[in-house]
């Protein structure tokens, strides 16, 4: 499967995790998008260096070919999926431990 298809699939998976599986609904929260915007800025910088000096190279027939700051656009989807998955897990784990504390004090 192409990187493009896998990256699109990963974004769908991350959204599904956030909205339907863990029900953290981060993508409906201002705090999430603010944090993501900050991370995205630094991703463009770091990923730009990694792809600009060719630390990593991509096979051209696996990517769609659109690039932002040297990096294939698929990397942005990969990053979004990874950050969303991470933050959904973090918030879900926090909510669970919060519920345990409340349950114990009841």
């Amino acid at each position, binding site marked *: 499967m*192409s*990187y493009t298809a*896998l990256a699109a699939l*990963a974004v769908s998976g991350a959204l599904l995790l956030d909205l339907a599986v863990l029900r*953290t*609904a*981060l993508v409906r*929260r*201002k*705090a*999430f998008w*603010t*944090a993501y915007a*900050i*991370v995205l800025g*630094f991703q463009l910088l*770091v990923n730009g*260096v*990694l792809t600009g*000096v*060719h*630390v*990593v*190279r*991509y*096979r051209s027939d*696996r990517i769609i070919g659109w690039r932002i700051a040297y990096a294939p656009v698929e990397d942005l989807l*990969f990053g979004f999926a*990874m*950050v969303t*998955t*991470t*933050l959904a*897990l*973090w*918030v*879900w*784990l*926090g*909510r669970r*431990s*919060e519920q345990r*504390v*409340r349950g114990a004090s009841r």
Partner: protein
Amino acid sequence: MRHLLYVGLLAACVIGTLPLEFVLHTRVYARWRRLVATVVPVVIVFGAWDLLAVAQHTWRYDDRYLVGVRLPGSLPIEELLFFLVIPTCAVLTLEAVRVRRPSWSIGDEGPA
């Protein structure tokens, strides 16, 4: 020196976000069990994707910019560090937003 490029970028990410923990008091490293439980599934899932991509030659890494330690599947050690460092930075960023904007709900707040 150029073999330190990738690992140096990751070190910069770790060092650059340290003030969030110690100046803004995000308490992310302080809650290390929750951080580990968050990061481990991410390492497994996205690490597997990386392994697959390397095996299928979707992307490849240039040895000139790597410290030279390769993990099983020919994955540079920098990639494992990447999957530890970047999710941690993302959590630090979210918690920093929480510190600066306490009225914005994130979804794991306790009872007021």
